[in-house]
């Protein structure tokens, strides 16, 4: 850089605050700083999205304890509900909560669903038997129980029917319908007759596969509803006594 330019640059470097200006500005700055404890303190803004997980130690224990109490209480209620029968306070929890949730877990396959619905059919009949043993199966409760058993049985048959339809679609040569003439709708009618007779109807409706070698799982499943019916023959008769109580007496009902 030539001398002329260097000289001018040196002159430019001489541009600065006068001593009085510098002192005055410094005083003004310190006054500003001291008037407030700190200036423009960075404010930590909690993210509204993260706040969910932000628990201070103080709150964490309280929240944890509350959650544990809720879980234990809920578990206790659910367990107690499982033992309930129609007419009990917790029966609603059993049918509308516990079983509903369990049903969701069994929707993974038609076979699982069919087994579960049949299991619930067994449960409904168990409940009816308990009520009958404690002489509570009468009046409105009896009607309610009859309705619940009938609905659940319908569901069990529908699930089985859906499963068989699926299997039939997969291979037309395999197995025929598990349920022959016995349909959910006329189950009640079938049960009006002799219990033995009804069992026979169920047996006859189970046809053999054309290939002659039923799979074990399918055979087991096809027997499940039948087993439930056999197991609860007595109570089924008792429940069907409304239109046909005489049939139940004939079959040795107490």
């Amino acid at each position, binding site marked *: *850089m030539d001398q*002329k*330019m260097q*000289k*001018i*640059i040196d*002159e*430019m*470097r*001489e*541009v*600065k*605050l*006068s001593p009085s*200006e*510098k002192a005055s*500005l*410094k005083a*003004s*700055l*310190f006054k*500003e*700083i001291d008037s407030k404890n*700190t*200036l*423009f*303190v*960075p404010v930590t803004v909690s993210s509204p999205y993260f706040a969910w997980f932000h628990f201070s130690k103080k709150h964490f224990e309280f929240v944890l304890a509350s959650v544990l109490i809720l879980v234990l209480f809920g578990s206790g209620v659910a367990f107690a509900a499982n033992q309930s029968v129609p007419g009990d306070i917790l029966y609603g929890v059993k049918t509308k909560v516990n079983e509903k949730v369990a049903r969701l877990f069994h929707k993974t396959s038609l076979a699982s669903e069919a087994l579960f619905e049949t299991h619930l059919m067994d449960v409904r009949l168990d409940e009816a038997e308990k009520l009958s043993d404690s002489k509570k199966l009468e009046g409105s409760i009896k009607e309610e129980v009859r309705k619940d058993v009938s609905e659940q049985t319908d569901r069990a048959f529908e699930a089985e029917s859906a499963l068989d339809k699926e299997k039939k679609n997969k291979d037309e040569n395999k197995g025929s319908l598990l349920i022959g003439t016995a349909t959910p709708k006329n189950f009640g009618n079938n049960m009006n007759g002799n219990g033995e007779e009804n069992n026979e109807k169920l047996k006859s409706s189970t046809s053999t596969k054309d290939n002659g070698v039923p799979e074990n799982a399918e055979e087991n499943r096809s027997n499940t509803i039948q087993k439930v019916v056999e197991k609860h023959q007595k109570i089924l008769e008792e429940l069907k006594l409304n239109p046909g109580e005489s049939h139940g007496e004939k079959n040795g009902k107490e």
Partner: protein
Amino acid sequence: MEKEKLRKEFGDLYEAYADALFRYCFFKTGDRELAKDMLQDICLKAWVYMQDHTIVLGRPFLYRLARNTVIDWYRKKKTSSLDNLLEQGFEPEDKKADTSAFAEKEQLMKMIGKLENEDQEILLLRFVEDLSPKEIAEVLNERENTISVRVHRALGRLREISK
């Protein structure tokens, strides 16, 4: 006490850089009073940053603060500082400069005024504020090599204009 320590550090920082920052703002705006106001803003921002001990308040950081303050002003005013300077005349505080030197300065300012803003800034930071290419790179958020090349080109253009 931590605050006392910070106050002392701030005072030292002010004594070291107030003139340089003022000069930068003055040459960028052409207005002495405005440059003083800007310097106050820059210092207050520096005070805030000082409380965040993760930030190192070196020269490049302070010039970056100054540059951002000037840019904000430009956005509001949208006027050419150098045009103002040329219209108002260049009057340094030191009145001892003789007439011929003053005339030379005016001539130089006119020449610099013909340069692009980026070239003016580069020359100001490099030769007036005496920042190294590395420091200028930090201020302008550029690579050091880029700054060296720009300084060289700006000087070349200034020589072309001065012929």
